[in-house]
């Protein structure tokens, strides 16, 4: 390896091993849409890749306290499950009796037992209806609660966390994990309880009627369980392989289709198709193995359960012949044997889905346990004048690379400060501090002479308006998007804000005006229009301090002029910090701060700095005047 490295150019010597591929998690997760058409033989979750939770006990305990909030519902549900199970257990006994009465020609008793049977059936139907209804309510209740708690957390996470964690991962906890937990709670838990009850109850009843036949039945049932277990283990392995192959294929499809233009531009269609076909063949190979194994499960189980049926019938027949039991008892045993093996299989499968759910709950709780944004600081300033000072500020996102070195800046109320510098020079970081999206490592930032860490965070933010490069709009009406800054504002104020931001004319041209609903966060609007709306929002906030991150991206000339005018109007009489990309902004600024690698290298107004012929001069010549090509 080291031999090779010597001959490679710089940048190639480090191997890329050990990085994890982040394939689209959508693919792997819902890998196995099981369709069960063979009754209880091939139930939910069988063979699915099971995820093991890290500390199941702790998470379970926590889940229990969670459900504590729905204690009454849980108790009712439990009682219902018991009732359903009992009535289901009783039915075959009564049915067996009825058949015995027929054989023994006891007709009056037959009628009575049929009435009892009907009553048992009605009870069973009624209770199981109630059980389903309660289970649905319970699961929705819990899901609602968990989603609420999780969202509250997401809402209060620090920007630092959001910046350093994949958004998709955060969101999948809301969508996949919570769903898993709720289905398990409402369905699997019920089946688990009823399964255990059924097994215990059935064995008890069978023992009561004929212990010899019970033992024989048990042997055959245990055989079933062993085979099931063995097979599901084998299946889990192939299904996991299949999930991986499917994930790979889905990831590939998504990448290739969204990157289709580049594929065409580089004449790569056939290469890519070949790659895809390979992945597709691989998936087919693996899933064929998985599906055939999975598909054999049903017939094999069927086979075993029928063999046990024969065993029960044969021995039952023998015992009936010797007079140990009656015909009705055989009929009863046949039903019980079936009823008894089903929950055992189910429990084995439930174990898997419960594990997956606990792992999901673990992830949800892990996010809920993330610390909230720092809320310390309780000074509520009466009115913010807008004096800002940075004193000896140091900051680094990661240990090795420092973003800001000993940054100092004094801003008088109403001053316009332009921050200029190459990408990565630390301009955005300065802005992040003002809003307390990030906190400084050392040094302090004062607003009106008070350290911002001591100011109530919400109040601090309320006194600042920010216009970001990437405009954020919400799927709501234009009216509500502008009023986002100040819901108490009346329509007149809102229209004035639209007017000031030069967005009034285009809004009023829309057929529904201010009531236009922005679908997909304003996808129908042009980039420039979106930015004007963001400015209108900032106008309505009427802040003492303004932070502008000027957009570099594509807007046409007229819109750009509009935006610029709007920004100038907005900056009037406010302390403004601008990450400047436009020449006019830079020239009109009271003070230009030239940043380079996290340090302030020059400061002054446009003329002063040009005269100095230093960093600003070079930057100006290349960045704004564009003197090279």
């Amino acid at each position, binding site marked *: 390896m080291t031999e090779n490295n010597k001959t490679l150019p710089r940048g190639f010597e480090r191997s890329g091993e050990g990085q994890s591929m982040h394939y689209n998690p959508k693919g792997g997760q819902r890998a196995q849409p099981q369709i069960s058409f063979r009754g209880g033989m091939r139930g939910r979750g069988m063979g699915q890749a099971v995820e093991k939770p890290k500390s199941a006990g702790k998470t379970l305990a926590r889940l229990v306290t969670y459900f504590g909030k729905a204690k009454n519902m849980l108790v009712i549900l439990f009682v219902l499950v018991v009732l359903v199970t009992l009535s289901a257990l009783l039915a075959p006994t009564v049915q067996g009796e009825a058949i015995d009465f027929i054989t023994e020609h006891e007709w009056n008793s037959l009628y009575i037992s049929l009435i009892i049977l009907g009553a048992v059936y009605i009870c069973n139907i009624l209770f199981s209806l109630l059980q389903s209804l309660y289970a649905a309510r319970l699961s929705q209740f819990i899901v609602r609660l968990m989603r609420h708690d999780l969202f509250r957390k997401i809402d209060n996470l620090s920007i630092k966390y959001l910046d350093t964690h994949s958004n998709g991962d955060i969101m999948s906890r809301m969508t996949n994990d919570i769903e898993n937990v709720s289905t398990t709670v409402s369905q699997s838990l019920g089946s688990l309880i009823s399964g255990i009850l059924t097994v215990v109850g059935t064995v008890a009843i069978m023992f009561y009627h004929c212990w010899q036949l019970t033992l024989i039945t048990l042997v055959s049932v245990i055989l079933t369980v062993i085979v099931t277990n063995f097979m599901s283990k084998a299946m889990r392995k192939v299904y996991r392989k299949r999930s991986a192959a499917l994930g790979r294929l889905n990831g590939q499809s998504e990448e290739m289709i969204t990157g289709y233009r580049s594929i065409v531009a580089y004449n790569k269609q056939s290469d890519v198709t070949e790659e895809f076909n390979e992945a597709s063949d691989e998936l087919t190979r693996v899933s064929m193995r998985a599906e055939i194994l999975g598909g054999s499960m049903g017939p094999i189980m069927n086979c075993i359960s029928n063999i046990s049926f024969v065993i029960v019938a044969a021995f039952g027949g023998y015992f009936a012949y010797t007079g140990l039991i009656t015909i009705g008892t055989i009929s009863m045993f046949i039903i019980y044997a079936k009823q008894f093996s089903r929950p055992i299989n189910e429990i084995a499968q439930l174990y898997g889905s419960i594990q997956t759910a606990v792992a999901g709950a673990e992830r949800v709780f892990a996010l809920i346990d993330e610390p909230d944004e720092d809320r310390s600081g309780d000074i509520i300033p009466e009115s913010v004048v807008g004096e800002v000072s940075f004193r000896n500020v140091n900051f680094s996102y990661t240990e090795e690379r420092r973003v800001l070195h000993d940054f100092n800046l004094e801003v008088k109320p109403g001053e316009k400060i332009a921050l200029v510098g190459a*990408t990565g020079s630390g301009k955005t970081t300065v802005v992040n501090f003002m809003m307390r999206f990030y906190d400084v490592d050392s040094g302090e930032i004062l607003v009106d002479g008070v350290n911002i860490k001591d100011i109530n965070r919400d109040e601090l933010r309320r006194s600042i308006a920010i216009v970001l490069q990437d405009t954020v709009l919400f799927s709501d009406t234009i009216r509500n998007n502008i009023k986002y800054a100040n819901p108490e504002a009346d329509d007149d104020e809102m229209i004035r804000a639209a007017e000031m931001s030069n967005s009034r004319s285009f809004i009023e041209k829309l057929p529904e005006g201010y009531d236009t609903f922005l679908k997909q966060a304003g996808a129908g609007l042009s980039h420039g229009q979106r930015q004007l709306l963001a400015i209108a929002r900032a106008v309505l906030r009427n802040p003492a301090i303004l932070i502008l991150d000027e957009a570099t991206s594509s807007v046409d000339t007229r819109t750009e002029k509009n935006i610029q005018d709007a920004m100038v109007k907005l900056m009037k009489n406010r302390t403004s910090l601008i990450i400047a990309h436009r020449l006019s902004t830079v020239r009109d600024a009271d003070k230009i701060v030239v940043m380079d690698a996290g340090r302030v290298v020059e400061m002054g107004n446009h003329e002063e700095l040009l005269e100095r012929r230093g960093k600003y001069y070079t930057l100006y010549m290349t960045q704004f005047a564009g003197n090279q090509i």
Partner: protein
Amino acid sequence: MLKYLKKYWFFCVAAALFMVGEVSMDLYQPDLMADIVDNGVLKGDINLIISVGVRMIISVILGGICGIMCGVFANLAAQRFGNDVRKDLFGKIMSLSFEETDKISTGSLVTRLTNDVTQVQNTVMMSVRGFVRNTVMFVGGIFMLYRQSPRFALIAACGLPFIIIAVVFFLKKTSPLFAIVQRKLDGINNVMQEDVKGARVVKAYVKEEYELDRFDKANGELCDINLRVHTLLAFMGPCMNIVLNICIVTVILVGGFTFREGGDMTPGRIMAAITYLAQILHGVTFMANIFQTFTRARASADRINEVLRSEAVILDGVCGELPERLGEVEFRDVSFSYAGAPGNRVLDNVSFRVHRGETFAIIGATGSGKSSLVNLIPRFYDALEGEVLVDGVNVKDYPLTELRARIAIVLQKAELYQRPIADNIRWGRGDADPWEIKSAAEIAQADDFICNTEYGYNTLVTEDGHSLSGGQKQRISIARAVIKKCNIMIFDDSTSALDLHTEAELYRTLGERMGDITKIIIAQRIASIKGADRIAVLNNGRIEAVGSHSELMESSELYRDIYNSQLKEGGDINDGE
């Protein structure tokens, strides 16, 4: 869709036959059991019990084998069928022109390739097995019931309509609700996505509580509709069970009466009848499930077919002899409009000629047609009128691969793939060695930041390139175009995320190292293209003026307007150049 299955008709038929075998054995069981009870147990004939028992076990094993074989064949058919469809679909997508892929969004294409194919494949699997199984079970069950006693069959016949009515009722009631559930689910996902992506704005405006309320509202709506669905579904099982249970009680009653009157009836038959009844009635429920998936699968199949049936409009051209690769591009009276909006001329009578080695820039407002114009050169779209020529030959006369091999285009949106950075660059030319990759990255001003990452050129580009900044992605995609070594390079606003200094360095290095290749640059900022040999000002699909920066400053008012808005009062400094 069926023609894909035709190839595997043998597997399908075999699977169906084996399924018939399995079900027959299943149906045979209760009959044998009745025999054991009536003739063995009741008459005390232990030998009969054993011999029938052995027969039973043999039939059970036979049934099991049939079942497994059915699974094997059904799988062979379904998996291969799915694989064929998937491959054809992907191949088709890759062969389509942009015009068609524009019509069906890329997101939708991905779903069609993944979810829809799986859906159809599962349905094939399910129909081969489930459909056959339940039909045979149903018909056979009624027949066997009839054999036990015609009266039993009559009871089942009375119960059946109720079951069917119940099934239809619940399907009708719930299926529209599922669409609403999906919509509400999208609703909460939407709120969450907006909040995660727009966290800075939410926080800046201190809107945490407001957002929580918004989420709670969406959450409540989703839970309510879910509850409605589950409540409805909760009634389905009990309704079916009522019918089944009434039938069972009736069977026992009727069976008992017949037995009492000395009719043709035995307790064993009553027991068998109960088993058959349960089998038949459950069969109906499963059929309902199958029909439900069928409708969903039909929608999927339609979506797949739509893609498979579309034909690429841009096809290889024929030309006798390929011209030398010079690097010349010419537009002759070219007009263009998108298929989706035929009346709206995006380009109107555009003519110009770019000479070998020239740097030709195009500037204009958004929507003025800049991207559409360069898209005509590698034939991403075809011109409506007029001709586009590359190296003197109409682009329509080139084989597509040859044409596209002559042009390196850097797209507006940098599309990178989940593989190491080095491989992403090598994508431009498969046989490039590490030195060439590094050199290309140097030209693209990407080498520095790449070397500064932990794994250097072996750094994986993660999903959608989230680990890289916009400017870094653009630079990698430029390096990828550079390594292609074409005489024509097109930059479609592909340096927008670079600061002007880096951008200037990029073009300088490119000029130094690549010699006299032809460059066509689309830009928003005048500063980035001021030094171009010639600049074309595009306005509403027409070329307003062409010339160098200083010429245009003199002659074009529009250009001056753009200049003034971007570089207002910058003149004094430029005079010092």
